[in-house]
Protein backbone atom coordinates (compact mmCIF):
# COMPACT_ATOMS: atom_id res chain seq x y z
CA UNK A 1 0.00 0.00 0.00
CA UNK A 2 1.16 3.52 -0.74
CA UNK A 3 1.46 6.02 2.12
CA UNK A 4 -0.95 8.21 0.16
CA UNK A 5 -3.82 5.86 1.14
CA UNK A 6 -3.37 6.64 4.85
CA UNK A 7 -1.84 10.09 5.05
CA UNK A 8 -1.59 13.54 3.53
CA UNK A 9 1.43 15.81 3.48
CA UNK A 10 2.67 19.37 2.94
CA UNK A 11 6.21 20.63 2.41
CA UNK A 12 7.59 23.88 3.75
CA UNK A 13 10.96 25.56 3.21
CA UNK A 14 13.17 27.81 5.30
CA UNK A 15 16.51 28.57 3.69
CA UNK A 16 18.17 25.31 2.65
CA UNK A 17 16.03 23.21 5.02
CA UNK A 18 12.84 21.45 4.01
CA UNK A 19 10.14 20.16 6.33
CA UNK A 20 7.66 17.51 5.26
CA UNK A 21 4.62 16.68 7.36
CA UNK A 22 2.97 13.26 7.22
CA UNK A 23 -0.53 13.44 8.69
CA UNK A 24 -2.88 10.48 9.21
CA UNK A 25 -6.36 10.87 7.73
CA UNK A 26 -7.65 8.77 10.62
CA UNK A 27 -6.03 9.04 14.04
CA UNK A 28 -6.20 5.25 14.47
CA UNK A 29 -3.63 4.91 11.67
CA UNK A 30 -1.08 7.08 13.43
CA UNK A 31 0.71 4.22 15.22
CA UNK A 32 1.19 2.48 11.89
CA UNK A 33 2.71 5.63 10.37
CA UNK A 34 4.99 6.05 13.35
CA UNK A 35 6.27 2.49 12.92
CA UNK A 36 6.57 2.53 9.12
CA UNK A 37 7.67 6.05 8.18
CA UNK A 38 11.01 6.17 9.92
CA UNK A 39 13.97 8.46 9.38
CA UNK A 40 15.76 5.59 7.64
CA UNK A 41 12.84 4.95 5.24
CA UNK A 42 12.63 8.64 4.32
CA UNK A 43 16.37 8.88 3.83
CA UNK A 44 16.44 5.77 1.63
CA UNK A 45 13.38 6.86 -0.39
CA UNK A 46 14.58 10.38 -1.17
CA UNK A 47 18.20 9.26 -1.61
CA UNK A 48 20.47 11.83 -3.18
CA UNK A 49 17.86 14.59 -2.81
CA UNK A 50 18.91 14.87 0.86
CA UNK A 51 22.39 16.31 1.37
CA UNK A 52 22.14 16.87 5.13
CA UNK A 53 20.47 15.44 8.22
CA UNK A 54 16.97 14.04 8.71
CA UNK A 55 15.16 14.60 12.01
CA UNK A 56 11.66 13.32 12.80
CA UNK A 57 9.30 14.97 15.29
CA UNK A 58 6.30 12.94 16.47
CA UNK A 59 2.96 14.62 17.23
CA UNK A 60 0.65 11.81 18.37
CA UNK A 61 -2.01 14.30 19.48
CA UNK A 62 -2.35 15.49 15.90
CA UNK A 63 -1.72 12.09 14.33
CA UNK A 64 1.24 13.60 12.54
CA UNK A 65 4.97 13.26 11.93
CA UNK A 66 7.19 16.16 10.90
CA UNK A 67 10.41 15.49 9.01
CA UNK A 68 13.11 18.16 8.86
CA UNK A 69 15.69 17.73 6.10
CA UNK A 70 18.73 20.00 6.13
CA UNK A 71 20.79 20.88 3.04
CA UNK A 72 18.09 19.62 0.70
CA UNK A 73 17.11 22.65 -1.36
CA UNK A 74 20.16 23.53 -3.46
CA UNK A 75 20.98 26.48 -1.19
CA UNK A 76 17.33 27.50 -0.75
CA UNK A 77 14.68 29.09 -2.92
CA UNK A 78 16.62 32.33 -3.34
CA UNK A 79 19.56 30.68 -5.17
CA UNK A 80 18.65 27.11 -6.16
CA UNK A 81 19.02 26.01 -9.80
CA UNK A 82 16.15 23.54 -9.37
CA UNK A 83 12.87 23.84 -11.28
CA UNK A 84 11.04 23.36 -7.96
CA UNK A 85 13.34 25.63 -5.98
CA UNK A 86 11.10 25.51 -2.87
CA UNK A 87 11.08 21.71 -2.90
CA UNK A 88 7.27 21.97 -2.75
CA UNK A 89 6.84 18.65 -4.58
CA UNK A 90 8.73 16.64 -1.94
CA UNK A 91 5.42 15.95 -0.14
CA UNK A 92 4.23 14.04 -3.22
CA UNK A 93 7.42 11.97 -3.27
CA UNK A 94 6.88 10.97 0.37
CA UNK A 95 3.28 9.88 -0.30
CA UNK A 96 4.62 7.41 -2.89
CA UNK A 97 6.32 5.38 -0.11
CA UNK A 98 5.27 1.71 0.07
CA UNK A 99 4.12 0.81 3.57
Amino acid at each position, binding site marked *: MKLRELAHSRTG*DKGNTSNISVIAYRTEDYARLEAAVTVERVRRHLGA*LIQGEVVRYALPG*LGALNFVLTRTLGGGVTRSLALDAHGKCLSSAILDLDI
Partner: protein
Amino acid sequence: MKRVRLGTGAGYSGDRIEPAVELAEAGDIRYLVFECLAERTIALAQLAKRRDPSAGFDPLLADRMAAVLPACRRNGITIITNMGAANPHAAGAAVAAVARSLGLGPLRIAIVTGDDVTEIIRARQDLTIEETGAPVSSLADSLVAANAYLGAEPIVRALKGGADVVVTGRVADPSLFLAPLVHEFGWAADDWTLMGKGTLVGHLMECAGQVSGGYFADPGYKDVPNLARLGFPLAEVAADGAATITKVAGSGGLITGATCREQLLYEVHDPARYLTPDVAADFSGVSITEAGPDQVRVDGGGGAARPGSLKVSLGYSDGYIGEGQISYAGPGALARARLGRDIVAERLRIIGLPLRELRLDLIGVDAIHGPELSAAAPEPYEVRLRVAGRTHTLKDAERIGNEVEGLYTNGPAGGGGATKMAKEVIAVQSTLIPRELVSPQVHMTEVQP
Protein backbone atom coordinates in the same frame (compact mmCIF):
# COMPACT_ATOMS: atom_id res chain seq x y z
CA MET B 1 -15.53 36.50 27.35
CA LYS B 2 -14.38 39.17 24.90
CA ARG B 3 -13.71 37.93 21.37
CA VAL B 4 -11.93 39.52 18.40
CA ARG B 5 -12.31 38.56 14.75
CA LEU B 6 -9.43 39.02 12.34
CA GLY B 7 -9.05 38.01 8.71
CA THR B 8 -6.17 37.39 6.33
CA GLY B 9 -6.23 39.59 3.24
CA ALA B 10 -3.18 38.12 1.51
CA GLY B 11 -0.73 35.27 2.11
CA TYR B 12 1.91 36.36 -0.38
CA SER B 13 2.81 39.35 -2.51
CA GLY B 14 0.90 38.35 -5.63
CA ASP B 15 -2.15 36.90 -3.89
CA ARG B 16 -5.76 37.32 -5.07
CA ILE B 17 -7.46 40.56 -4.02
CA GLU B 18 -11.21 39.67 -4.11
CA PRO B 19 -11.09 37.39 -1.03
CA ALA B 20 -9.80 40.36 1.02
CA VAL B 21 -12.72 42.49 -0.19
CA GLU B 22 -15.11 39.67 0.69
CA LEU B 23 -13.71 39.55 4.24
CA ALA B 24 -13.90 43.33 4.64
CA GLU B 25 -17.50 43.41 3.41
CA ALA B 26 -18.97 40.25 4.90
CA GLY B 27 -16.48 38.86 7.44
CA ASP B 28 -17.64 40.93 10.44
CA ILE B 29 -13.94 41.36 11.27
CA ARG B 30 -12.12 44.02 13.30
CA TYR B 31 -8.66 43.54 11.70
CA LEU B 32 -7.55 42.64 8.18
CA VAL B 33 -3.94 41.47 7.88
CA PHE B 34 -1.96 41.30 4.64
CA GLU B 35 1.25 39.20 4.76
CA CYS B 36 3.21 39.88 1.59
CA LEU B 37 6.95 39.47 2.28
CA ALA B 38 8.83 36.33 1.26
CA GLU B 39 12.46 35.63 2.24
CA ARG B 40 14.07 37.50 -0.58
CA THR B 41 11.36 40.08 -1.42
CA ILE B 42 12.85 42.70 0.86
CA ALA B 43 16.37 42.47 -0.63
CA LEU B 44 14.91 42.90 -4.12
CA ALA B 45 12.89 45.83 -2.80
CA GLN B 46 16.08 47.38 -1.39
CA LEU B 47 17.59 47.27 -4.88
CA ALA B 48 14.47 48.88 -6.35
CA LYS B 49 14.65 51.64 -3.69
CA ARG B 50 18.28 52.34 -4.57
CA ARG B 51 17.29 52.92 -8.18
CA ASP B 52 14.21 55.00 -7.21
CA PRO B 53 13.89 56.40 -3.66
CA SER B 54 10.07 56.36 -3.93
CA ALA B 55 10.00 52.63 -4.80
CA GLY B 56 10.82 49.51 -2.79
CA PHE B 57 7.40 48.52 -1.43
CA ASP B 58 4.80 46.00 -2.58
CA PRO B 59 3.75 46.66 -6.20
CA LEU B 60 0.12 45.70 -5.44
CA LEU B 61 -0.20 47.95 -2.37
CA ALA B 62 -2.21 50.70 -4.06
CA ASP B 63 -4.50 48.20 -5.83
CA ARG B 64 -5.15 46.32 -2.59
CA MET B 65 -5.85 49.49 -0.62
CA ALA B 66 -8.16 50.90 -3.28
CA ALA B 67 -10.08 47.61 -3.21
CA VAL B 68 -10.47 47.21 0.58
CA LEU B 69 -10.27 50.69 2.14
CA PRO B 70 -13.90 51.72 1.40
CA ALA B 71 -15.33 48.62 3.14
CA CYS B 72 -12.73 48.82 5.92
CA ARG B 73 -13.65 52.44 6.68
CA ARG B 74 -17.36 51.64 6.55
CA ASN B 75 -17.02 48.66 8.88
CA GLY B 76 -14.37 49.99 11.27
CA ILE B 77 -11.67 47.52 10.21
CA THR B 78 -8.01 48.24 10.94
CA ILE B 79 -5.50 47.10 8.33
CA ILE B 80 -2.10 45.66 9.27
CA THR B 81 0.43 44.83 6.56
CA ASN B 82 4.13 44.29 5.90
CA MET B 83 3.71 45.61 2.34
CA GLY B 84 6.10 48.44 3.27
CA ALA B 85 8.96 46.03 2.43
CA ALA B 86 12.15 48.10 2.08
CA ASN B 87 10.35 51.44 2.11
CA PRO B 88 7.50 51.68 4.67
CA HIS B 89 7.52 55.51 4.46
CA ALA B 90 6.85 55.50 0.71
CA ALA B 91 4.25 52.76 1.21
CA GLY B 92 2.52 54.88 3.86
CA ALA B 93 2.47 57.80 1.44
CA ALA B 94 0.92 55.54 -1.20
CA VAL B 95 -1.82 54.47 1.24
CA ALA B 96 -2.48 58.14 2.04
CA ALA B 97 -2.72 58.95 -1.67
CA VAL B 98 -5.30 56.20 -2.20
CA ALA B 99 -7.32 57.37 0.82
CA ARG B 100 -7.28 60.98 -0.39
CA SER B 101 -8.29 60.05 -3.93
CA LEU B 102 -11.24 58.05 -2.57
CA GLY B 103 -12.19 60.75 -0.06
CA LEU B 104 -11.75 58.35 2.87
CA GLY B 105 -10.25 60.69 5.47
CA PRO B 106 -9.75 61.04 8.32
CA LEU B 107 -7.36 58.10 8.30
CA ARG B 108 -4.48 57.49 10.70
CA ILE B 109 -1.57 55.68 9.12
CA ALA B 110 1.21 54.24 11.26
CA ILE B 111 4.57 53.46 9.67
CA VAL B 112 6.83 50.98 11.45
CA THR B 113 10.56 51.16 10.73
CA GLY B 114 13.74 49.90 12.35
CA ASP B 115 13.95 46.49 10.71
CA ASP B 116 16.62 47.73 8.28
CA VAL B 117 19.83 46.86 10.15
CA THR B 118 22.20 46.98 7.18
CA GLU B 119 24.49 49.58 8.75
CA ILE B 120 24.48 47.79 12.12
CA ILE B 121 25.45 44.53 10.42
CA ARG B 122 28.24 46.20 8.45
CA ALA B 123 29.64 47.57 11.70
CA ARG B 124 29.36 44.23 13.53
CA GLN B 125 31.64 42.02 11.49
CA ASP B 126 31.99 39.49 14.35
CA LEU B 127 28.57 37.94 13.60
CA THR B 128 28.38 34.54 11.90
CA ILE B 129 26.13 33.29 9.12
CA GLU B 130 23.71 30.68 10.48
CA GLU B 131 23.76 28.42 7.41
CA THR B 132 27.53 28.22 6.93
CA GLY B 133 29.19 29.32 10.17
CA ALA B 134 31.27 31.78 8.12
CA PRO B 135 31.66 35.35 9.40
CA VAL B 136 29.18 37.89 8.04
CA SER B 137 32.21 39.89 6.91
CA SER B 138 32.84 37.20 4.26
CA LEU B 139 29.88 38.64 2.33
CA ALA B 140 31.81 41.94 2.12
CA ASP B 141 30.59 44.13 -0.72
CA SER B 142 28.14 41.49 -1.96
CA LEU B 143 25.82 42.30 1.00
CA VAL B 144 22.78 44.12 -0.41
CA ALA B 145 20.63 44.51 2.68
CA ALA B 146 20.10 43.17 6.17
CA ASN B 147 16.65 43.19 7.74
CA ALA B 148 15.79 42.03 11.25
CA TYR B 149 12.52 40.27 11.95
CA LEU B 150 10.63 42.60 14.30
CA GLY B 151 7.97 41.28 16.66
CA ALA B 152 4.49 42.42 17.62
CA GLU B 153 5.57 45.27 19.93
CA PRO B 154 5.81 48.22 17.49
CA ILE B 155 2.47 47.24 15.89
CA VAL B 156 0.83 47.17 19.33
CA ARG B 157 2.24 50.66 19.89
CA ALA B 158 0.78 51.80 16.56
CA LEU B 159 -2.65 50.37 17.44
CA LYS B 160 -2.55 52.09 20.85
CA GLY B 161 -1.89 55.32 18.95
CA GLY B 162 -5.17 54.85 17.10
CA ALA B 163 -3.85 53.68 13.73
CA ASP B 164 -6.38 52.71 11.06
CA VAL B 165 -3.65 51.31 8.83
CA VAL B 166 -0.29 49.93 10.02
CA VAL B 167 2.42 49.58 7.39
CA THR B 168 5.63 47.74 8.26
CA GLY B 169 8.74 46.34 6.65
CA ARG B 170 10.13 43.03 7.91
CA VAL B 171 8.05 41.69 10.79
CA ALA B 172 7.77 38.00 11.66
CA ASP B 173 4.62 36.79 9.90
CA PRO B 174 2.70 35.54 12.98
CA SER B 175 3.52 38.78 14.84
CA LEU B 176 1.29 40.70 12.40
CA PHE B 177 -1.66 38.72 13.85
CA LEU B 178 -0.44 38.49 17.44
CA ALA B 179 -0.21 42.30 17.71
CA PRO B 180 -3.96 43.07 17.49
CA LEU B 181 -4.68 40.30 20.02
CA VAL B 182 -2.15 41.75 22.48
CA HIS B 183 -3.70 45.18 21.93
CA GLU B 184 -7.34 44.09 22.27
CA PHE B 185 -6.92 41.78 25.25
CA GLY B 186 -4.13 43.62 27.04
CA TRP B 187 -2.00 40.47 27.13
CA ALA B 188 1.34 40.89 28.90
CA ALA B 189 4.28 40.57 26.51
CA ASP B 190 5.92 38.09 28.89
CA ASP B 191 2.86 35.86 29.30
CA TRP B 192 4.51 33.15 27.20
CA THR B 193 1.45 30.89 27.12
CA LEU B 194 -0.74 33.64 25.63
CA MET B 195 2.06 34.75 23.29
CA GLY B 196 2.26 31.12 22.14
CA LYS B 197 -1.50 30.86 21.61
CA GLY B 198 -1.61 34.11 19.65
CA THR B 199 1.39 33.02 17.60
CA LEU B 200 -0.41 29.75 16.83
CA VAL B 201 -3.36 31.74 15.45
CA GLY B 202 -0.97 33.90 13.42
CA HIS B 203 0.88 30.89 12.06
CA LEU B 204 -2.37 29.23 10.93
CA MET B 205 -3.56 32.46 9.29
CA GLU B 206 -0.38 33.86 7.72
CA CYS B 207 -0.59 31.97 4.42
CA ALA B 208 -4.21 33.00 3.80
CA GLY B 209 -5.87 30.36 1.57
CA GLN B 210 -3.44 27.63 2.62
CA VAL B 211 -5.59 26.96 5.71
CA SER B 212 -8.97 27.31 3.97
CA GLY B 213 -8.57 24.64 1.29
CA GLY B 214 -5.91 26.18 -0.93
CA TYR B 215 -2.78 24.10 -1.61
CA PHE B 216 -4.70 21.08 -0.31
CA ALA B 217 -6.78 19.54 -3.10
CA ASP B 218 -5.81 16.09 -4.39
CA PRO B 219 -8.74 14.83 -6.49
CA GLY B 220 -10.21 11.59 -5.19
CA TYR B 221 -8.32 11.89 -1.92
CA LYS B 222 -8.83 15.46 -0.76
CA ASP B 223 -11.54 17.20 -2.76
CA VAL B 224 -12.08 20.92 -2.25
CA PRO B 225 -15.12 22.80 -3.60
CA ASN B 226 -14.96 26.01 -5.61
CA LEU B 227 -11.23 26.81 -5.48
CA ALA B 228 -11.63 29.57 -8.07
CA ARG B 229 -13.59 31.47 -5.40
CA LEU B 230 -11.47 30.37 -2.44
CA GLY B 231 -12.42 32.20 0.76
CA PHE B 232 -9.57 33.48 2.90
CA PRO B 233 -9.60 32.57 6.60
CA LEU B 234 -10.85 34.54 9.54
CA ALA B 235 -10.15 33.73 13.18
CA GLU B 236 -12.44 34.43 16.09
CA VAL B 237 -10.14 34.59 19.08
CA ALA B 238 -11.19 34.65 22.73
CA ALA B 239 -9.36 36.51 25.49
CA ASP B 240 -7.89 33.21 26.75
CA GLY B 241 -6.28 32.60 23.34
CA ALA B 242 -8.59 29.81 22.14
CA ALA B 243 -9.66 30.39 18.55
CA THR B 244 -12.05 29.26 15.89
CA ILE B 245 -10.77 29.33 12.31
CA THR B 246 -13.53 29.87 9.77
CA LYS B 247 -14.36 31.81 6.59
CA VAL B 248 -17.17 33.82 5.01
CA ALA B 249 -20.26 31.64 4.42
CA GLY B 250 -20.71 30.83 0.74
CA SER B 251 -17.08 31.36 -0.23
CA GLY B 252 -15.12 28.53 -1.85
CA GLY B 253 -12.67 26.17 -0.21
CA LEU B 254 -13.03 24.31 3.07
CA ILE B 255 -11.72 24.45 6.61
CA THR B 256 -11.36 21.10 8.34
CA GLY B 257 -9.10 19.48 10.90
CA ALA B 258 -6.97 18.23 8.01
CA THR B 259 -6.48 21.66 6.39
CA CYS B 260 -5.53 23.11 9.78
CA ARG B 261 -3.11 20.28 10.62
CA GLU B 262 -1.31 20.72 7.27
CA GLN B 263 -0.91 24.44 7.85
CA LEU B 264 0.05 23.97 11.50
CA LEU B 265 3.20 22.09 10.47
CA TYR B 266 3.95 24.22 7.39
CA GLU B 267 7.50 25.65 7.61
CA VAL B 268 7.83 24.33 11.18
CA HIS B 269 10.92 22.49 12.40
CA ASP B 270 10.69 21.51 16.10
CA PRO B 271 6.95 21.93 16.84
CA ALA B 272 7.75 22.44 20.53
CA ARG B 273 10.02 25.42 19.79
CA TYR B 274 8.73 27.60 16.99
CA LEU B 275 10.87 30.69 17.42
CA THR B 276 9.58 34.18 16.73
CA PRO B 277 10.72 37.55 18.09
CA ASP B 278 7.81 37.34 20.59
CA VAL B 279 8.03 33.82 22.02
CA ALA B 280 9.38 30.29 21.68
CA ALA B 281 5.97 28.93 20.77
CA ASP B 282 5.01 25.36 21.55
CA PHE B 283 2.61 23.72 19.07
CA SER B 284 3.22 20.17 20.32
CA GLY B 285 0.10 20.06 22.53
CA VAL B 286 -2.30 21.82 20.18
CA SER B 287 -5.79 20.37 19.86
CA ILE B 288 -7.69 20.79 16.61
CA THR B 289 -11.43 20.05 16.70
CA GLU B 290 -14.08 20.40 14.01
CA ALA B 291 -16.87 22.47 15.57
CA GLY B 292 -19.09 22.64 12.48
CA PRO B 293 -18.90 23.05 8.70
CA ASP B 294 -15.82 25.21 7.94
CA GLN B 295 -15.32 25.85 11.65
CA VAL B 296 -12.29 24.47 13.45
CA ARG B 297 -11.53 25.10 17.08
CA VAL B 298 -7.85 25.45 17.93
CA ASP B 299 -6.48 25.46 21.45
CA GLY B 300 -3.60 24.17 23.57
CA GLY B 301 -0.77 26.25 22.15
CA GLY B 302 1.86 27.26 24.65
CA GLY B 303 5.23 28.88 24.84
CA ALA B 304 8.42 29.70 26.68
CA ALA B 305 10.54 32.84 26.94
CA ARG B 306 11.31 34.63 23.68
CA PRO B 307 14.82 34.29 22.18
CA GLY B 308 17.41 36.87 23.24
CA SER B 309 18.38 37.51 19.63
CA LEU B 310 16.54 38.52 16.51
CA LYS B 311 16.89 36.72 13.20
CA VAL B 312 18.26 38.87 10.41
CA SER B 313 17.95 37.98 6.75
CA LEU B 314 21.05 38.93 4.77
CA GLY B 315 20.36 39.62 1.12
CA TYR B 316 23.53 39.29 -0.93
CA SER B 317 24.51 39.27 -4.55
CA ASP B 318 25.26 35.68 -5.56
CA GLY B 319 26.19 35.86 -9.22
CA TYR B 320 23.87 34.99 -12.09
CA ILE B 321 21.67 32.16 -13.30
CA GLY B 322 21.17 31.39 -16.98
CA GLU B 323 18.59 28.93 -18.24
CA GLY B 324 17.29 27.51 -21.49
CA GLN B 325 14.46 25.10 -22.31
CA ILE B 326 13.29 23.26 -25.43
CA SER B 327 10.59 20.60 -25.98
CA TYR B 328 10.42 17.29 -27.84
CA ALA B 329 7.22 15.30 -28.44
CA GLY B 330 5.86 12.13 -30.02
CA PRO B 331 7.74 8.92 -30.78
CA GLY B 332 11.35 9.07 -29.62
CA ALA B 333 10.82 12.27 -27.67
CA LEU B 334 12.81 11.05 -24.67
CA ALA B 335 15.77 9.87 -26.78
CA ARG B 336 15.91 13.17 -28.66
CA ALA B 337 15.68 15.18 -25.41
CA ARG B 338 18.52 13.11 -23.95
CA LEU B 339 20.59 13.68 -27.09
CA GLY B 340 19.89 17.43 -26.86
CA ARG B 341 20.93 17.39 -23.19
CA ASP B 342 24.23 15.63 -23.99
CA ILE B 343 24.95 18.05 -26.83
CA VAL B 344 24.46 21.11 -24.60
CA ALA B 345 26.64 19.60 -21.86
CA GLU B 346 29.43 19.04 -24.41
CA ARG B 347 28.96 22.47 -25.97
CA LEU B 348 29.35 24.16 -22.56
CA ARG B 349 32.67 22.31 -22.18
CA ILE B 350 33.80 23.19 -25.72
CA ILE B 351 33.15 26.92 -25.31
CA GLY B 352 34.85 26.78 -21.90
CA LEU B 353 32.06 28.56 -20.04
CA PRO B 354 33.16 29.23 -16.42
CA LEU B 355 30.31 27.55 -14.53
CA ARG B 356 29.92 27.52 -10.75
CA GLU B 357 27.14 24.94 -10.94
CA LEU B 358 25.19 23.23 -13.72
CA ARG B 359 21.93 21.31 -13.81
CA LEU B 360 20.48 19.34 -16.74
CA ASP B 361 16.84 18.28 -16.34
CA LEU B 362 14.27 16.51 -18.45
CA ILE B 363 10.94 18.06 -17.46
CA GLY B 364 8.28 15.33 -17.45
CA VAL B 365 10.93 12.75 -16.53
CA ASP B 366 13.39 13.66 -13.78
CA ALA B 367 13.40 17.45 -13.27
CA ILE B 368 11.58 17.49 -9.93
CA HIS B 369 12.75 14.42 -8.00
CA GLY B 370 15.85 13.37 -9.95
CA PRO B 371 16.64 10.16 -11.84
CA GLU B 372 16.43 7.71 -8.90
CA LEU B 373 12.76 8.20 -7.93
CA SER B 374 11.58 8.43 -11.54
CA ALA B 375 13.60 5.45 -12.85
CA ALA B 376 10.60 3.10 -13.15
CA ALA B 377 8.19 5.65 -14.67
CA PRO B 378 6.81 5.02 -18.19
CA GLU B 379 8.10 7.10 -21.11
CA PRO B 380 6.09 10.31 -21.46
CA TYR B 381 4.61 11.59 -24.75
CA GLU B 382 6.43 14.89 -24.46
CA VAL B 383 9.63 15.94 -22.71
CA ARG B 384 11.14 19.36 -22.09
CA LEU B 385 14.89 19.75 -21.76
CA ARG B 386 15.96 22.33 -19.19
CA VAL B 387 19.54 23.47 -18.64
CA ALA B 388 20.31 25.87 -15.77
CA GLY B 389 23.71 27.09 -14.66
CA ARG B 390 25.26 29.49 -12.17
CA THR B 391 27.87 31.92 -13.50
CA HIS B 392 29.96 34.89 -12.41
CA THR B 393 28.68 37.27 -15.10
CA LEU B 394 25.40 38.04 -16.83
CA LYS B 395 27.04 37.54 -20.22
CA ASP B 396 28.06 33.99 -19.31
CA ALA B 397 24.56 33.29 -17.97
CA GLU B 398 23.08 34.36 -21.32
CA ARG B 399 25.30 31.91 -23.17
CA ILE B 400 23.61 28.95 -21.43
CA GLY B 401 20.21 29.79 -22.89
CA ASN B 402 21.82 30.47 -26.25
CA GLU B 403 23.32 26.97 -26.34
CA VAL B 404 19.88 25.44 -25.66
CA GLU B 405 18.20 27.65 -28.26
CA GLY B 406 20.97 26.61 -30.67
CA LEU B 407 19.48 23.10 -30.65
CA TYR B 408 16.84 24.44 -33.08
CA THR B 409 19.21 24.38 -36.04
CA ASN B 410 22.12 22.39 -34.62
CA GLY B 411 20.45 19.70 -32.51
CA PRO B 412 18.07 16.73 -32.67
CA ALA B 413 14.98 16.69 -34.91
CA GLY B 414 11.73 18.31 -33.89
CA GLY B 415 12.81 20.57 -31.04
CA GLY B 416 10.25 23.31 -30.39
CA GLY B 417 9.22 26.09 -28.02
CA ALA B 418 12.71 27.14 -26.93
CA THR B 419 12.87 29.77 -24.21
CA LYS B 420 15.80 31.36 -22.42
CA MET B 421 16.42 33.70 -19.52
CA ALA B 422 19.28 35.11 -17.49
CA LYS B 423 19.05 36.92 -14.15
CA GLU B 424 21.04 38.35 -11.31
CA VAL B 425 20.66 36.35 -8.10
CA ILE B 426 20.02 38.03 -4.76
CA ALA B 427 20.29 35.15 -2.33
CA VAL B 428 19.42 35.17 1.36
CA GLN B 429 21.21 33.77 4.38
CA SER B 430 20.63 34.63 8.00
CA THR B 431 22.36 35.70 11.18
CA LEU B 432 21.29 36.51 14.73
CA ILE B 433 21.82 39.83 16.48
CA PRO B 434 21.18 40.87 20.08
CA ARG B 435 17.71 42.40 20.20
CA GLU B 436 19.00 45.48 22.10
CA LEU B 437 20.66 46.61 18.89
CA VAL B 438 17.31 46.96 17.13
CA SER B 439 14.99 49.84 18.01
CA PRO B 440 11.67 49.80 16.12
CA GLN B 441 10.07 53.20 15.49
CA VAL B 442 6.44 54.13 14.89
CA HIS B 443 5.62 57.24 12.83
CA MET B 444 2.01 58.45 12.68
CA THR B 445 0.55 60.45 9.82
CA GLU B 446 -3.04 61.48 9.24
CA VAL B 447 -5.06 61.97 6.09
CA GLN B 448 -7.51 64.80 6.72
CA PRO B 449 -11.15 64.56 5.62
